[in-house]
């Protein structure tokens, strides 16, 4: 579903995409829907495809079979998942308002990708399965955020003149970890270990 929304938004006319994008001045003026929709629009088709593909991977049975997502504990707490998906976009947008004062415009769904990635990896680490893959993913993501904070961006899908908004990745990762911890409470309380799949 999120991947479909991203790809749908990418084919809208530019003036509509501009009306949905995160823009500091517009948000200050009261256009609050941009706190949500800013995560769906992108700078060009290439940017949209990259993030859309990542969201699709999380929606397929492949990654969703990782413990903790959809078929795992994250999926069992469907209410919590729905709440997180509603609350996450404005929290990601607010992180930009607070920690990137020079940034006036933002587009991209990679904050949500970061949240899903960190959530899946953390959940897997908690349940004791796929620890190596999950650990590698989390470590790679932390290294990516550190490099971006230092101004290093490797093979970015963004057009020239657009910088990578690393606070969104950091906050998305933290949200994912928090989501995984909240969703895994029943598992932690039951004391079950090993590969857990529904």
């Amino acid at each position, binding site marked *: 579903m999120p991947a479909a929304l991203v790809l749908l938004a990418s084919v809208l006319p530019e003036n509509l995409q501009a009306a949905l994008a995160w823009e500091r001045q517009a948000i200050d003026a009261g256009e609050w829907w941009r706190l949500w929709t800013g995560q769906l629009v992108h700078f060009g088709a290439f940017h949209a495809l990259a*993030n859309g593909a990542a969201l699709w991977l999380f929606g397929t049975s492949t990654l969703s079979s990782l413990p903790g997502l959809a078929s795992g504990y994250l999926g069992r707490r469907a209410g919590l998942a729905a709440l997180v998906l509603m609350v996450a976009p404005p929290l990601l947008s607010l992180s930009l308002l607070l920690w990137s004062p020079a940034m006036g415009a933002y587009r991209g769904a990679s904050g949500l990708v970061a949240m899903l990635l960190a959530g899946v990896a953390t959940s897997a680490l908690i349940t004791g399965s796929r620890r190596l893959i999950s650990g590698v993913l989390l470590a790679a993501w932390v290294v990516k955020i550190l490099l971006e904070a230092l101004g290093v961006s490797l093979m970015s899908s963004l057009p020239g003149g657009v910088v990578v908004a690393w606070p969104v990745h950091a906050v998305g990762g933290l949200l994912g970890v928090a989501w995984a911890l909240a969703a895994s409470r029943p598992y932690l309380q039951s004391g079950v270990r090993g590969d857990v799949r529904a």
Partner: protein
Amino acid sequence: MRLLKVWSVLLLALASLALAGCAGMLNEHKKQNNASVVDYLYPKDSKVEAMVPASEVNLRLPLRVGLAFVPSMDRTAADLPESVRQKLLERVKVAFADQKFIAAIELIPAAYLRPRGGFDNLEQAARMFNLDVVALLSYDQVQFNDANRLSVLYWTIVGAYIINGDEYDTHTLLDASVFDVHSRKLLMRAPGVSQVKGSAAMVNFSEKAREARVQGFSEAIDNLIPNLRTELVKFQERVKQDSTVRVTHAPGYAGGGDLGLIGLALLAAVALVDALRGARRKRRAG
């Protein structure tokens, strides 16, 4: 003795009338104080440049904006003190400091601008303060001073201290013209007007008239600020259609959430490895 008394009364009456008359002559009937942006930017002895096609205006946001009064060619006693000018400019600065496309607003003191300095002088000041755009405030203030009917009581001597026999009527016009320094193009302009009326006694009329002139500028600034805000909104809309104005942003203005191709490849690799393991597990179970 009686003749002496009559002469004394006559002399006293004559002196009082003369004094009352003088009250009307002590203050000039009209004081004018102006500074023209055209005289400043295009002084009479400057060469007239041939008309050229409008050059492109490049506005790189956020802008560094300068704010200054146009230097007056005739610094008379009626002119505003520099300290008052700076306070007035500070109010305009505070009113626009929250605009997101403005990085900073610098107040340019009068000492940095020469009367009839032209665009060269403006560019020198802009280089000193590192400015992209300069807003020049030109002004025209006229103060009319007249005696009213109460001024006849000045002959009482005491009346000159307590009777408000002189009136002032101060008309002030301010005009803010915003120029792009590099292209020398006028981007927008907005007016501010005020009228201050009042009266004062003869002995303190100069002080009250001076206060009225300052109040005139102050009220004209209050009138200018909302007009300038309106023009700013219209300019933002106009720029979208004007092909001669190009708006760009400083690095870091536009940000994107980007997984990166390496990140995407890593994620895809993880998904592939997990899919292969899952398939192998199913084959063993089957």
